[in-house]
């Protein structure tokens, strides 16, 4: 049971993050979507799992200032709005992948 782990994490352009995984998959992310998916207890209700970020409140120009590893299992983002309490686990990051293949898969699941 070994879930994929990030092999390389890099900035692709001003608003895009790229992660290549050790199973060969390459992920891309819009940083704004990542900020909106913050899993911390301020952004997601701990008991109900309900999203607490009101739609439209994350500005288009949101950027990470800094990313760093937390132990061997997660990445912590320090955002330009001062928010930094979210620990994005490797599993979560993999789920949030916005590459064409993953996007069409998650669209299939929703219909």
């Amino acid at each position, binding site marked *: *049971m070994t879930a994929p*782990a*990030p*092999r*390389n*994490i*890099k*900035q692709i352009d*001003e608003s895009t993050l790229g992660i290549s995984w*050790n199973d060969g998959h390459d992920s891309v992310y819009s940083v704004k979507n990542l900020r909106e998916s913050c899993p911390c207890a301020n952004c997601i209700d701990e008991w109900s799992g309900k999203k607490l970020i009101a739609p439209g409140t994350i500005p288009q120009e949101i*950027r*990470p*200032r*800094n*990313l*760093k*590893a*937390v*132990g*061997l*299992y997660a*990445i912590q983002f320090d955002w330009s709005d001062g928010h930094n309490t979210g620990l994005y*686990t*490797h599993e979560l990051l993999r789920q949030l992948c916005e590459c064409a293949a993953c996007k069409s898969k998650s669209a299939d699941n929703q219909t």
Partner: protein
Amino acid sequence: MSDPKLQEKIIDALKTVQDPDLHKDIVSLGFVKNMSIDGGNVKFDVELTTPACPVKEQLRTECETKVKAIDGVEQVDVNMTAVVRSTEHSQPVLTGVKNIIAVASGKGGVGKSTVSTNLAIALSMTGAQVGLMDADIYGPSIPQMMGIPISPPKVGSENKFFPHEKYGLKVVSAAFLTKQGQPLMLRGPMLGGIIQQFLQNVEWGELDYLVIDLPPGTGDVQLTLTQKAPISGAVVVTTPQEVSLIDADKGVKMFQQVKVPLLGIVENMSYFICDGCDKKHHIFRQGGGKKLAGTFNIPLLGEIPIIESIAEGGDSGIPVVMADAESSAAQAYKDLAGQVAAQLSINQANKGEKVSADFELSWKS
């Protein structure tokens, strides 16, 4: 007078010697060093990844036999050495420590501290530099087991302090930070602070292995350590019965979630051998540890029997591996140390490319 052909033949012969754990021959692994050939006298070093290697003697014999069988070789002198490889990390904490082993359990009272203490001593008896961190803040028992009187640690410069030393081990415990017998009454966030101190402010020096004795459960201390310390691997201790296994199962899953490699399971209090009838009595039932290891497909590293001398060693401050090095209990711990060291070496050899624990990226805009 060294014969290049002879050297070639010796290397070829050594290429047929496999390290059973790493599944490669010892020449490709770069273990063979400092070969000198003088007429028919051949000398070389075999440098293993741990002095605690469980198959050390087996490898030596195999090298000797195979080289001796070559025409023109009269005398073979194999020198077994070891340089412990470091699990890669460059976090600002514990920079001089090559491998960090966390000893955990889901449940209390399964003998974590006894296992940690004897494991640490058994590792150091092989010649490795070993440290022991008692991270059980509320119930520190390592000082008692190691026979170290409660006294404040020696303070160095810049808020640093030195570990206590006993039996060649460097030891740190929360017990040294309080008066004898006084409980530490702390809320969760303070625990994290003490663990940070242990990681950042202790002058550990150069260590091959740091054994961390964790408190039971899956709480603050475990999380802080997995987030702040570059743990090389975890050992989960359980007793054989179902009630203990339920919690050990959670311990294993915790490490899986935070991606700390599991070295394996230790089954403690496995059986009792009666001195009257020599029969193995499985007091807490049989095969629990094996079952748990099977469920997660991880190794069962050892089964430690119930022996009075183990408890005696804990109470007297002379752990059983030291007090009675030839006893079956001591042997069980020495075997365990060998297994743990071997698993660490295997993990390092097999680890793929991964973002390391010190990854950091500043965003450019």
